[in-house]
Every structure is written in structure tokens, then in C-alpha cells.
């Protein structure tokens, strides 16, 4: 499998009234072709922001990518300005995104067919008729009944699950190499969520598309992903294959996350405290205030870099790294 995306040292900041928030802090990871990678963490830990930063879709002002590179198919996505032609040619074509909010992510004033066809006329130079045919064909593939008719509906005429199917269809239209699903199923009912995940899983397998699943649901990751990146306070604090991490979570935060997954007959152990404020963070480990395993040394040392401990498994906990 070839390397598809290499992100190196990505940092994103937001300027607010109370100070500069470093929402994404020196994040590095890579994605291979056709791979499914889960990106997990609590809300506000920078998962979505890191993905939007790649696509340069961060609202600016107040947000700004301040450092890093993201090499995709031989070009650095962060080198271009966010409205540049080069980047527009990649978005929706080579990389597409599916967002969390099915109710608001489709334009209420345009029919489904038009919103889909415009992607095809834009990137693949299809004429209107071809674009419409391809769109309805894709609607059929994502399991929308009577796609020829539904195509002429407006978004408000469809249910939330149907709309998210449309979003998936739209993301698949140009057979992209990478799809970023940003909490794509979080807002849906459990049964619909499962249907949609199976559908996405099938589709990316069929088209050999890499998929980044941004989620806080570890069950989903365990079921579908090949590898996992765990984010906390804007950093990746642990990475590895699903097997590695489930078998031996190294970072206390990852461990805490896993023990938050309800299992039959076991008492839940929530992580105490709240995620830290991202303004003027000290150099120490960001998880320090909530960590059950901290030592006196933790208060003195700067936070560890993500360091590999064997296989594809890496962590950013000083204590764990010492143990090894």
C-alpha cells in the first residue's frame, strides 16, 4: 500500500478575546491508500479542527494554520492559499468531506440533483445530463429508493438519515482517494447510524478509498478502523493499530477512554475533570491535572513527544516511555 497523506507538525490557532487558542498543536500522522483510520478524543480536543485545517476550511479570521505541511499525492496542501485554484481542484475531487450536521450541511435552496451535479461538472467536466445520470446512479448506490425522483427534492423534504446518505453520495462522486468523515453519523439514530456506517465501509472498500473517521465513539473505531489516532488537547497522544491499542493502551488518557466504553456487568469509570483550556498551556503534559498515574516527575518534565514503542504503536506519556 502506498503512502497517501503525510501530515507533519500541523498547528492551528484561533484568536479569541481571551487569548490565542492553540487548537491543534504539532500534529503529525500519515494515511496509506485505502486505509481506514479513526481519530478519537473528547469534544474540543481538536479532531475536527485538524481535519478542517488540512482542507483549509478553518474560518479565518479567527482561525489560522500556523505551521506544518500536509503532503497529499506529492503536493503540500498547506502551501496553497485557501481560495487558490489548486486547492479547489483537490477539494471534493481527490479529498472529500462528510460533515456532522445532516440538517444544515446541504443548501436548502437547491435540489439534491443540482448540488450533486455541480461537483461533477466542476471536476470532471461532465455535461448536465451526464452529471445528473451519474448523480442518480450514486444515489442508488447509497441506498436511496427511487433516486430519479428524490434527486429533484429539496433537502428539507428528506429525513436526516437520507440527507446524510446524500452527503455520502456527494463525497463519493469523483471517486476521491481520501474521505474525511467528521462525526458523520453522530447526530443520527443508532439503527440509522449502523446502516450508514456499513454503507460507507462497503463503498470505501469497493472504490479503494482511504477514510478518516473522526468520532468520539470507540465502538465504531473498533469495528471499522485499521488504525487509531487518539487526540487530547490539540495533540496526538497515542497512535497504533486497533489491535495494539485495545490490547495495551499506553497513555492514561487512552486507558481512561477505553474504560468509558460501557460493558455489560461492569461499572463505568469516567475520567474525572474537564479538558484543559488551550490558552497559554504550560509545557507540561496536558493530561496532568486529570491523570490518575501522575508522579512528582510529571510536574517537572515537559510533555513527551509521540514516540514509537514497537510495531505501529506510539505514545506521548513520559512514565510509560520510561517503563519500556
Amino acid at each position, binding site marked *: 500500500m502506498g503512502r497517501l497523506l503525510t501530515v507533519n507538525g500541523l498547528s492551528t490557532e484561533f484568536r479569541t*478575546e481571551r487569548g490565542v487558542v492553540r487548537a491543534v498543536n504539532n500534529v503529525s500522522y500519515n494515511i496509506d491508500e485505502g486505509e481506514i483510520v479513526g481519530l478519537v478524543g473528547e469534544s474540543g480536543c481538536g479532531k475536527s479542527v485538524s481535519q478542517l485545517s488540512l482542507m483549509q476550511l478553518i474560518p479565518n479570521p479567527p482561525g489560522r494554520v500556523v505551521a506544518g505541511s500536509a503532503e497529499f499525492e506529492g503536493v503540500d496542501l498547506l502551501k496553497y492559499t485557501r481560495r487558490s485554484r489548486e486547492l479547489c481542484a483537490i477539494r471534493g475531487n481527490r479529498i472529500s468531506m462528510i460533515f456532522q450536521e445532516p440538517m444544515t450541511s446541504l443548501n436548502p435552496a437547491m435540489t439534491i440533483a443540482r448540488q450533486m451535479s455541480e461537483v461533477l461538472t466542476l471536476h470532471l467536466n461532465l455535461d448536465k445530463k451526464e452529471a445528473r445520470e451519474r448523480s442518480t446512479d450514486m444515489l442508488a448506490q447509497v441506498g436511496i429508493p427511487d433516486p430519479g425522483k428524490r434527486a429533484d427534492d429539496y433537502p428539507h423534504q428528506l429525513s436526516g438519515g437520507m440527507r446524510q446518505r446524500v452527503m455520502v453520495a456527494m463525497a463519493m462522486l469523483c471517486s476521491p482517494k481520501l474521505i474525511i468523515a467528521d462525526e458523520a453519523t453522530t447526530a443520527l439514530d443508532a439503527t440509522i447510524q449502523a446502516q450508514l456506517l456499513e454503507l460507507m465501509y462497503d463503498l470505501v472498500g469497493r472504490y479503494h478509498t482511504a477514510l478518516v473517521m473522526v468520532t468520539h465513539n470507540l465502538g465504531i473505531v473498533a469495528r471499522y478502523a485499521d488504525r487509531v489516532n487518539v487526540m487530547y488537547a490539540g495533540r496526538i497522544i497515542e497512535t497504533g493499530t486497533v489491535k495494539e491499542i485495545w490490547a495495551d493502551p499506553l497513555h492514561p488518557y487512552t486507558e481512561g477512554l477505553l474504560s468509558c466504553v460501557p460493558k455489560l456487568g461492569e461499572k463505568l469509570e469516567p475520567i*474525572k*475533570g*474537564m479538558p*484543559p*483550556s488551550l490558552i497559554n498551556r504550560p509545557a507540561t503534559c496536558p493530561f496532568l*491535572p*486529570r491523570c*490518575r*498515574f*501522575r*508522579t*512528582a516527575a510529571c510536574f517537572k518534565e515537559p510533555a513527551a513527544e509521540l514516540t514509537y514503542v514497537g510495531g505501529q504503536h506510539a505514545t506521548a506519556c513520559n*512514565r510509560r516511555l520510561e*517503563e519500556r
Partner: protein
Amino acid sequence: MDGTKIVREQIPDDEFEVLEEEQLSGVNELKRFVRAFFRRKIVVVGFILVVVVLLTAALADVIAPYDPYEQDLYQVLAAPGPSHPLGTDALGRDLLSRIIHGSRIALAVGVCTVLVSASIGTVIGLIAGFSDSRLNSLIMRITDILISVPSLVLQLLIASALNSGVTGVVIAIGLTLFPAYIRLINGQVLSVKQNDYISASRSMGAKKSRIIVRHVVRNVVSPLIVMMTIMMGMSIMAEAGLSFLGLGILPPAAAWGSMCRDGYQYLMTRPLLSIAPGLAIMILVFAFNMVGDGLRDALDPKLRGALK
């Protein structure tokens, strides 16, 4: 997973609960209000202008260099100069003094009109909001009709039916502007009635009517104040329009609108006669609008923080 090296400690509850304290005391509330009100420079300008006009009106007799009604037939249509800074009109009256005294009429008309229309509109709006849905929709339909009539037509008719003069103008304008208040108040009452906190406090055993009244008062006062401020400007402008058409406040009263009408005949030779009073109208309307905007920023919690 060896626990010997790693010491378990109590997790301190640090840095998580600082947000709520600053909103509690009344002094801070006032401070926050003032800060939100004056956040935009243009609002500061508007506020200063309102104060200046208020002072001018209060001290008109002291500030004005001449009696605004005293005719000086030797000084007819005098050019602006040292003795008459803005010149004199066709009857030899000092323009500056007339504009200064005109502020009294403008403010009086503005205040009275707003009081008339706001009280009628608020009462009907409350009735509509608290009545059953059939009566409510009847009242709102009639309000729709009243709003869809060109207001100037009604103002002209009422003003001339009541004979021109301050009272007639106030009633004419007041009667055409009150439907806007009905909509506002009715909307607020309905939204309060539907809100979750009503049923929440009811389930906690409080009496329904008392809760509603308290919440309605709380939700109605702020938008009402904002609307009244902006309507001050609108009424002053409406009065000026009527007076300009010769159907509002008639000469010799020093109303800015009728001064424009009289001065317009001499536009070629003495442009200030019609342009200066018009500028005064614009400044006052602008000032009230800006103060209204500032009040909205400061009073409307939904917009708080959204406008930076």
C-alpha cells in the same frame, strides 16, 4: 499495569469554575451594560449628539442669539454673516435661532408620538398575546392590514382631519406607528408562553400567571426600549415630512420640516434656509438610531457577544 511506581493522588478541582461569578452583582451588571453600549464608536457619537440636542432644547432661550419669532424686515433673507451666523429667512427671522428652538418641537413630537404609539401598541399586543388563539389571530390580521397601508396616506388624512398642529401630528403619527408594537409585544408574549422555563417553573409548583407575568416583563422591556428609541427617530422624520408637505406643523412655528418648506422657495439664492434645518433633522434621527443600536447590543442577550 504495575501500580507501584505510579502514585495515585486526589484530583484537585482547579480552574474549571471561574465563569459565573462575574455576572452576579448589580454593579458589574451596570458596568457590563455601559461597556456593551459604548463598544462601537458610532454609538458614542450618536449618544453625544442626543445629549447635545437635549441640552440645546433645554437651554434654547439662553443659547439662541435672537427671538426665533421676531421679524426684522430690514434684514430679510440676509446672507450668513457675523450678526446672523446662518442668515435670516424671508421674514427676517434668524435661522440659527429658529433651528435651535426647532429642537424643542422635534423632541416634543418624538416623545409624545412614541408614548402614544407605544402605550396603545403595548396594551393591544399584551391583549393579543394573552388571549386565545382565535382572538389572537383576529387581532394580528387587523394589525397586518394596518401595517400594509402606506402610512403617509393615513398620516396625511388624520393630520388634516384633526387640524394641523402638534396634537394633530402626534395623533396622526402615533396612530400609524402603533401596529409595529403590537407585533413586537405579541411575539414576545407568545415566545415566553411557549418557553420551556415556564413549564419548568410550573412543575416546581409556582403559580402560572405569576411566572408568566414576571417573564413577560423581563422579556418585553428590553426590546420595547430599543424599539421606542428607534421610533423616536422615525416619528421625528414623519413629522418633518408632514410639515414639509404643509400638512403638519404650520408656520410660524419653528418646526424643522416647515422651515425647509418655506426655505425651499429660496433654494437658488439662500440654500441654507432649507438645507440647514434638514441637516438638523438628519442628525437627530441618526443619533436616535445609533443609540437604539447601542441599546440593542447592550440589552439583547441573544446578540451579546455576537457583535464584536
